[in-house]
């Protein structure tokens, strides 16, 4: 076999993969033209007097509609306001992705944020996601010379730098904090309500979302938190009634998104997309909108009337007398039209809304004419939707307004304006997904070529063993075809569990056939595979993930928290095992005892972290006493100490390997250091998984697998353990809890690396293990790079093909796009960086000299 051409082909393929990803992404994630600048009133705009001059905008993170409206709600005062008619309640539809930042963008700009905002939400960089240069109702207020104040989630401060006169941002490092994050907001309310200099008071409460993440919507903390929020509503409403300077204030209470039954969000289930939206003011009582409240809980979470979240922007603009922000796709909520007495004012509001929407439509479709003369002929077809529908609706407005007199204009032209606005909103929301199909095809082609050029090398590998090759084919074809079914994408873990048990069965057959084991220890081989499949079965149940069975009880979220003693015994065992591993991997000449300090430090850090992140796991055991005595050292320094020690170990390992023939020993030391690092980056309830890994490794090492089999085992274990750690193909399952370990001030690179490591801990461990297993094996000619590249390229090709073929599918933004983002992470971070550079490249380099 010609080694050099093969190697170059693999390198070329791995260069092609990122190129393919880039090409595909530019076609897949659409760039939407944004109108720059701030909207101003036209000369022609009639002067409509504003209904309100101030706004209190209170966001309660993850305030699902039923938390306010349903029978079991704690919002008793708010419900009494609904009955009194002082509230106009809605269910606001929050589009996917249902995470905070894109939702805030939707509520302030009125636009539909692009999918890329999700990534930006995770990598909350300070500059890229800012709305400082976009038109929002806050910018409009600011431009008018008004003052704004803000308390709560500091996402607002990142989105609107320099916007607020006074502010106090809260960060959410620990979701276990239910109390302080909210007290930090509430304590400012009395003083701000007494002040009269602001015209917008923004509050963003995080506690309810934290409770959801921690314990779900049915948590015992939920009712008291709702009552606490209700008390805030009561305090504000009372002030609005009593304080003279708040007489003309609009109070908006809303959630940015909802939550699913597990208390998470990011996807598009009914619970996640249905936050509550309430407009509160004593002035609304004149409308006579007294509604029944509370109401029966419903499964679809739709209470009262459903509106779009983007509709908040034009409605606020109309009520506050502001120009509608340029890029808004919202439709004025018609219930508020009756706040004006004169029909011409009402019509003006609708006219402004329609005109502004027409401008955005024109900017997006520069080739489409809205000139009445041009449309007249083409409108005979009677299209009711799409861009033609918008044209026709505009033409109708034109026709009607010419015919009718000024008095009854609102009654006749008003509905036509509303109809146009509605169609324009639909058209514009769907153009957010306007794909560049040729780019998609090109990206697919490039990635396909990458897969094709490594294919001969893979065939050559598989020719050694027909059944292994067949199994690999089953894996690649099965995985690829799975990507076209949304439920298989959501339940990807099932595939890996399934194929992994099949592979262990294969190993079992192989073991019983092997001459050596058959003669000497028939029983040992059966026990070995039994041990493997049992440990695999335990991992499978460690974290229930996916969509369908995610709420079922599992080990990490149900069993261990209710048996803390068992959990901590396992965790301590894992740390002891890690210390043992480190100790044994050092040369005897070295003062080996010193290294035991490292796992002890790491354990201390973990206890302190758990005390902050999930104190319920510690309860009041001996460990909590230990934690209290250690509190003096800040968490960041503790983490840095551990990371420093791990770096020292790796430096030592490199020194050892350059010294002499102790390559296997140095590899072992690197593996042990990595093991400890990954434990530090994992949740406490996942730490015992590393003990299970150790057992699996102990079983696999004496099996004498061939190079090809090692590669397949580690490939499968990488994917399987990713899901066993609780990962899934949903954005909401990204675990950010360990992303800030040892990070003092925010840094995209550091937080990015730590986030990747804490979510891909299992895969990274198995790459390292694969490296150790390979050093055991006798056959040295095997090069795993080609096979790994082939699998990566093939899975990318299938995901890309699925995204291209199903680009009009209902679930494209909720299932397939997140999967594509995950595939990018798998292909670039896990495959290129970890697998190739870490697992294959470094050892190859070391062998050279």
């Amino acid at each position, binding site marked *: 076999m010609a080694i050099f051409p093969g190697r170059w082909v693999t390198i070329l393929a791995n260069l092609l993969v990122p190129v393919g990803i880039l090409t595909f992404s530019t076609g897949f994630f659409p760039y939407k033209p944004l109108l720059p600048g701030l909207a101003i009133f036209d000369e022609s705009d009639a002067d409509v007097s504003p209904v309100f001059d101030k706004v209190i905008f209170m966001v309660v993170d993850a305030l699902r509609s039923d938390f306010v409206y349903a029978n079991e709600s704690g919002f008793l005062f708010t419900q009494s306001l609904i009955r009194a008619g002082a509230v106009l309640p809605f269910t606001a539809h929050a589009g996917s992705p249902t995470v905070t930042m894109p939702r805030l963008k939707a509520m302030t700009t009125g636009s539909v944020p692009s999918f890329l905002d999700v990534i930006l939400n995770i990598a909350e960089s300070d500059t890229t996601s800012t709305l400082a240069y976009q038109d929002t109702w806050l910018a409009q207020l600011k431009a008018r010379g008004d003052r704004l104040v803000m308390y709560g989630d500091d996402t607002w401060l990142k989105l609107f730098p320099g916007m607020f006169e006074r502010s106090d941002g809260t960060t959410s490092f620990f979701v276990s904090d239910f109390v302080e994050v909210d007290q930090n907001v509430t304590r400012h309310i009395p003083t701000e309500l007494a002040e009269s200099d602001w015209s917008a008071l923004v509050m963003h409460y995080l506690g309810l979302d934290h409770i959801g993440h921690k314990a779900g919507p049915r948590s015992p903390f939920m009712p008291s938190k709702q009552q606490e929020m209700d008390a805030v509503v009561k305090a504000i409403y009372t002030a609005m009634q009593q304080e003279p300077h708040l007489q003309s204030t609009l109070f908006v209470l809303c959630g940015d998104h909802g939550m699913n039954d597990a208390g998470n969000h990011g996807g598009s289930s009914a619970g996640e997309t249905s936050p509550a939206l309430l407009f509160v003011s004593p002035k609304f009582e004149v409308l006579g909108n007294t509604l029944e409240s509370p109401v029966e809980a419903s499964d679809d979470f739709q209470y009262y009337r459903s509106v779009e979240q983007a509709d908040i922007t034009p409605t606020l603009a109309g009520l506050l007398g502001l120009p509608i922000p340029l890029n808004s796709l919202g439709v004025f909520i018609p219930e508020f039209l009756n706040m004006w007495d004169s029909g011409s004012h009402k019509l003006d509001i609708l006219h402004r809304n329609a005109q502004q929407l027409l401008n955005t439509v024109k900017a997006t479709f520069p080739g489409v004419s809205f000139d009445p003369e041009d449309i007249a002929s083409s409108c005979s077809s009677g299209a009711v939707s799409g861009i033609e529908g918008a044209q026709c609706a505009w033409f109708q407005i034109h026709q009607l307004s010419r015919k009718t007199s000024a008095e009854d204009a609102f009654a006749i032209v008003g509905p036509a304006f509303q109809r146009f606005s509605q169609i324009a909103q639909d058209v514009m929301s769907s153009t957010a997904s306007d794909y560049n199909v040729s780019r998609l095809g090109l990206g697919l082609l490039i990635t396909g070529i990458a897969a094709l050029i490594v294919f001969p090398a893979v065939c050559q590998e598989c020719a*050694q063993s027909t059944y292994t090759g067949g199994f690999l084919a089953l894996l690649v074809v099965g995985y690829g075809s799975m990507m076209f079914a949304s439920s298989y994408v959501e339940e990807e873990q*099932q595939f890996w569990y399934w194929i992994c048990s099949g592979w262990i069965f294969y190993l079992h*057959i192989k073991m019983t056939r092997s001459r050596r084991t058959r003669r000497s220890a028939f029983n040992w081989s059966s026990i070995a595979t039994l041990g493997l499949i049992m440990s695999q079965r335990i991992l499978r149940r460690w974290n229930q993930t996916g969509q369908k069975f995610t709420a079922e009880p599992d080990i990490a979220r149900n069993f261990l928290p209710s048996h803390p003693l068992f959990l901590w015994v396992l965790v301590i065992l894992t740390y002891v095992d890690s210390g043992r591993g480190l100790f044994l991997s050092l040369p005897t000449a070295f003062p080996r005892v010193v290294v035991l300090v490292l796992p002890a430090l790491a354990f201390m850090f973990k206890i302190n972290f758990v005390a902050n992140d999930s104190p319920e796991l510690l309860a009041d055991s001996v460990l909590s006493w230990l934690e209290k005595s250690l509190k003096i050292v800040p968490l960041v320094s503790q983490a840095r100490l551990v990371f420093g020690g791990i770096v020292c170990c790796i430096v030592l390992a490199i020194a050892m390997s350059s010294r002499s023939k102790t390559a296997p020993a140095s590899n072992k030391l690197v593996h042990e250091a990595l093991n400890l690092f990954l434990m530090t980056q994992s949740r406490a309830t996942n730490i015992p998984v590393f003990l299970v890994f150790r057992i699996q490794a102990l079983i696999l090492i004496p099996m004498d697998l*061939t190079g090809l089999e090692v590669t397949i085992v580690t490939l499968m274990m990488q994917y399987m353990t990713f899901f066993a750690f609780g990962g899934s193909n949903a954005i909401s399952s990204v675990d950010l809890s360990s992303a800030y370990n040892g990070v003092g001030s925010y840094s995209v690179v550091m937080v990015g690396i730590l986030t990747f490591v804490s979510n891909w801990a299992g895969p990274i461990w198995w790459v390292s293990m694969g490296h150790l297993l390979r050093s055991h094996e006798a056959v040295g000619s095997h090069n795993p790079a080609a096979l790994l590249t082939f699998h990566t390229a093939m899975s990318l090709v299938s995901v890309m093909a699925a995204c291209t073929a199903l680009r009009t599918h209902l679930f494209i933004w909720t299932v397939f796009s997140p999967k594509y983002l995950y595939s990018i992470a798998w292909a670039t971070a896990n495959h290129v960086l970890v697998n190739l550079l870490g697992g294959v490249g470094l050892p190859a380099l070391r062998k050279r000299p």
Partner: protein
Amino acid sequence: MASHSHVSSINQAGSPSQAFVEKSSAPPINILPSKLAQAYSYAHPILLLTLCAARFEALVADPVQELLADLPWLALLQLFYVLLCLPPAASPSADSSPASDAKAARSRSGKPGYRRKNSGKNVWAAVWAKLMPACLSLGLTFLATPIIAALLVMFGAPLTTHNYETVLCAAHMALLSASQLAYVHGVDGSVWKEVWGIARPADTVWGSALGTGLGAWFGAIPIPLDWDRPWQAFPITILVGAYIGYALGTLLSRTPLLYGKRIQFSSESEEEDEKKTN
């Protein structure tokens, strides 16, 4: 499982795999030569599949009740099938088809385990010779049930819930697979060792057993789909997969293409090397 690729792999490796076949292992089994046995052996898997289809709705409605109620009937059907179509464990090789006669006789000569001379004239002895393995078969099937249940759990069946379903599913699978193996091979240790190592040569008995297992494995595929159909509940697809696998296995492994072949690894040359060095 054994396929063309296997054949070619033997050729490539210069037929070292023959050395791998254990001398003491039982040869592949044939259906008894009588016309009735031959005819029914084809009808039986189709009959089982038809019954499975007929009772499908009841199975979806109440899996535990239905599986339990079907169990005695399935046992009777399987018993009838093995008594009519298969050679019992103790029978002399003359019972198997003439084609493999000589080979069978040779390889069985040294076979340990349950053996008994059958005069062939005494009717009672003949009945006894069949009844005894039949009882043994049922007994072993009973023993196989917990093993299969444990394997089902290992392969992902729920452990904390659905226990009745798992055990009953295992009982059905045991009746499909183990009952025939036990009737034909009795307590022959070398055969069961081969079964454990998936090393039996393909025949209708082993094919049906392997097919049952593989069918159950593939039966898990529709469960994660979000179709929200009641039949996606735990034991149903697995069990239907097992029945289909049984039927395919028993019919396909009789064909000349597969008959007598074993699942083999083409990297057996490695093992040969080991053997030489030892």
